[in-house]
């Protein structure tokens, strides 16, 4: 097993594509997405089942090296500042296979 970082982001579904391109541009090769989750934060309730499609969140996590985290963190901060959302980082052990 290898010590890695897990980055978790909740962001508007409408900005998910931006987030993914940001990660791919920084050389992230893997991620997992759960679409259409809902929640509440500074910008109020994201109802999730709107016909408008505007009040929906997505949840993404990616497992990466500490170095990759450091590379991307400032851009992530900027993105969240502009669009809202939440990002947390934690330590995990990755099962090498």
């Amino acid at each position, binding site marked *: 097993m290898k010590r890695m970082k897990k980055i978790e982001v909740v962001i508007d579904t409408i900005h998910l594509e931006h987030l993914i391109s940001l990660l791919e541009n920084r050389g992230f090769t893997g991620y997992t997405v759960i679409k259409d989750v809902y929640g509440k934060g500074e910008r109020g309730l994201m109802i999730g089942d709107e*016909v408008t499609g505007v009040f929906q969140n997505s949840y993404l996590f990616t497992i990466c090296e500490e170095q990759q985290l450091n590379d991307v963190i400032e851009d992530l901060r900027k993105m969240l500042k*502009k669009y809202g959302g939440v990002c947390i980082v934690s330590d995990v052990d990755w099962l090498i296979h």
Partner: protein
Amino acid sequence: MSLDLLIQNVLNPVILFFFLGVLSIFLRTGLEIPQPIPKFISLYLLMSIGLHGGYELSKSGLDFYVFKVLGLALLMAIVVPIYSFFILRLKVDIYNAVAIAATYGSISAVTFITAVNFLQSIGDSYSGFMVAAMTLMESPAIIIGLILLNIFAKKSDNGNLDVKELLRESFFNPSVYILTGSLLIGFITGEKGWKVVDPLFGQLFKPMLAFFLLDMGIVAARRLSELKKVGMFLVAFAIIIPIINATIAILIASSVGMTKGDAFVFAVLCASASYIAVPAAMRLSVPEANPSIYVTMALALTFPFNISVGIPLYYWLANKILGG
């Protein structure tokens, strides 16, 4: 306005289901039409009106009258967001003014459908190509909004606006695309094609609308709790501007000799506000604006107003101005 029209409009299963949805939220019944069914019905409705409009167009053909009406539609789609913007700037910051102006400059397909449904139920008719007018009116307000933003906002981080991407997103958003596509398919395949799709896209149209409006009632009423964020000025705007837009539309229509049915439908288009395509575009390109404001206005105020009071009112107006 004759009370008769109002009652005729409201005592219709399609409209009643809308109010059933609204009431459901106040009684907290927990009723919901689970996603993605409403999205699917919304797609179905767009395909239906596209196919039907295309079929009607294939029967009537294209002539000068058609192009005249389409030109006027385009004009209103450009003018409405501009004057709306300046009215809004009296009280609202620039970002929200842009987003709201774009919202009201564009159209709501379901309001259009409800109007058509009303027209049929009272035995009046309209031209099939009005679907093309609707399609044409969906996107320009987005562009106008962003031009206004670029002119009036200080050039901080809006500088890096990707124009090409923006045009693509304005004109190739899902609603515009499926409407245009279905319109073309309906036009190309004509009578023979319509026979193939009629059992689903023709026969089931009205009851499906009932279904969809049940959901819209739920969604709209849920938004009502956000009304305090909207404020009195915008609440008034959400009711008055549709009436103004509709009146202007009918006056123009009358001056260029549109038929009463077409003038009415045109008025409904101008009076309606977008709660799908435009909010999605604004969310992407004007993240500073608050969607709880512009979506709530379009969805929880203007939409219910239009389908209950507005539609009979605009019809009555069209009747007055263009003569019974």
